[in-house]
């Protein structure tokens, strides 16, 4: 029900990657992406090696290629943009099949595609192997301000509830013969959005009451604390470390 995608992102499994503590995975993915972004775009082979690294992780995590590829579709809008770049960029131009293209633009397009795709793939792997709740625990462990973690956790808990309310309001509108076709109908849609805000805010107040009733005084009690052994850290950081070696080679070669 509701925004089903919130849990479709996760693929249940018991692979070594699934089993790693969430904060080590978050740290590893973040470090990996930083390394990728810092790699010179001329070192094309380096990006190939990064892709190989990610494929290896996907293999260990038993995330099927089809799943990964489908989730990569999210980057389609900016692929479309990247395709434009050779046409609009300045500088030296080359003729390819009779079309004049900017050399810099081609490099730029390659740069964006390669780095963007690797970034998306890494995030997809993270989301596919880590449960929502674990991600929150991981963020908490990585010393994200507790209030921010609480906000995120409430957002995730009530995202479905509110999307579901929105869906019911749409059904109610449509049952009475209303169908939004154009700008003329924005007023009605905005009224729904306004009503949704009021409901959300009032629910926030009620949730607060329920929390206070159970002894909440401003900070969440720590119920679960995730910990990682040295071995687990080593295992998780193998990915960014390998990437760093590739990156350094890319700069020197």
């Amino acid at each position: 029900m509701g925004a089903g995608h919130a849990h479709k992102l996760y693929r249940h499994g018991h692979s070594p990657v699934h089993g790693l503590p969430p904060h080590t995975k978050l740290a590893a993915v973040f470090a990996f992406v930083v390394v990728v972004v810092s790699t010179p775009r001329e070192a094309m082979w380096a990006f190939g090696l990064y892709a190989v690294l990610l494929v290896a992780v996907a293999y260990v995590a038993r995330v099927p290629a089809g799943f990964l590829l489908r989730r990569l579709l999210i980057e389609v809008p900016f692929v479309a943009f990247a395709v434009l770049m050779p046409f609009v960029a300045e500088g030296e131009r080359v003729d390819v099949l009779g079309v004049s293209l900017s050399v810099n633009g081609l490099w730029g397009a390659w740069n964006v595609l390669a780095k963007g795709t690797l970034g998306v793939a890494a995030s997809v792997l993270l989301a596919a192997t880590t449960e929502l709740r674990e991600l929150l625990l991981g963020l908490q462990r990585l010393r994200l301000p507790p209030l921010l973690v609480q906000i995120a956790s409430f957002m995730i808990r009530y995202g479905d509830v509110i999307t579901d309310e929105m869906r019911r309001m749409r059904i109610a509108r449509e049952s009475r013969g209303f169908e939004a076709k154009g700008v003329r109908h924005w007023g009605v849609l905005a009224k729904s959005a306004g009503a949704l805000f009021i409901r959300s805010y009032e629910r926030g107040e009620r949730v607060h009451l329920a929390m206070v009733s159970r002894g909440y005084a401003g900070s969440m009690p720590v119920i679960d604390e995730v910990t990682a052994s040295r071995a687990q850290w080593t295992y998780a950081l193998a990915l960014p470390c390998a990437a760093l070696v590739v990156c350094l080679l890319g700069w020197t070669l």
Partner: protein
Amino acid sequence: MHVPDGFINAPTSAATGVIAAGAVAVSLRGARREQGGTSLLERSRELGGERTAPLAGLVAAFIFAVQMLNFPVAAGTSGHLLGGALAAILVGPYTGVLCVSVVLLMQGILFADGGLTALGVNITNMAIVTTVVAYALFRGLVKVLPRTRRSVTVASFVAALVSVPAAALAFTLMYAIGGTTDVSIGKVATAMVGVHVLIGIGEAAITALTVGSVIAVRPDLVYGARGLTQKLKLRVNGELVDAPQAEPEPAPVAARTSHRKVWAAGLVASLVLAGFVSFYASADPDGLEKVAADHGIDKKAEDHAVADSPLADYGVKDVDDARLSGGLAGVIGVGVTVVAGSAVFWAVRRRRSDDTSPSNTTDSTDSTSATSTTSV
């Protein structure tokens, strides 16, 4: 306009990350004050309940949901809210920054929507710039316009309208510093701003309608109009004994003392914005690139990441010069009208409030709000 990894180089991403972290830290403090208590259970706060987390969490969930609500434009195309301006007006700027930041964070981690290294860029543009610009403008306008619900709607419209191109400009600035590649800054700026003026019009209409519908039912929930509704309430039920007691709540008082500052910030922001735009319009586009080069930030010539992803998000094709200048002219028009209008009405209002009660300046103010909307 979620920026993916690789558009902005590493040093600039890191720098925006620091900016974003700082702003979020400030907001974490500010939000506690904002969510002190608005409705019937004001006393729960003194009993040790911290309301920020559940309220901001629910509002974040709301923003997240409402971004999925499609507003059909015409023939199969549709738009949706970005929500920065809406959040700022409904729950206050600090909570707004937090909510949108959390939404962006979760979108980045869960949906790979927006790169992890670009998180700083995305939060700075979409959570901080939109919210701050929108709220400053909104407060400025509410202060200047007559105290009616319609003014709140008009102010929301203008605030949301300007906030989106403002974020686009902020992105352009980051691109100028750390984007590099040979798409000229001028092109990026004009294309970004042009497109985002269009998006801004949609955002403005939806935001204004939504704020209008909330204020019609629960005016006490619209943070940005809190001082206003309380004044109104007093006048309507003057006979209520408890009404004056409810007035000196800590939150509104704090808001009142900072009114002037907020309002001044609004004017400065719109001035800066308008100035920025006209600078781009008039100056030789290569000039800015030189500025970026002089700063020495883009000396890593190898690391030419390329730029305007936001365009891609909204499927905009190569924009020729005529359209660019058209879009630009629009922004300048809006900016200048807002600034001029605000200045005039501030002057008018001040004079009137000196000799009469501040309630009736209706006719003149209405005409400005009209100009500011028609110039769009």
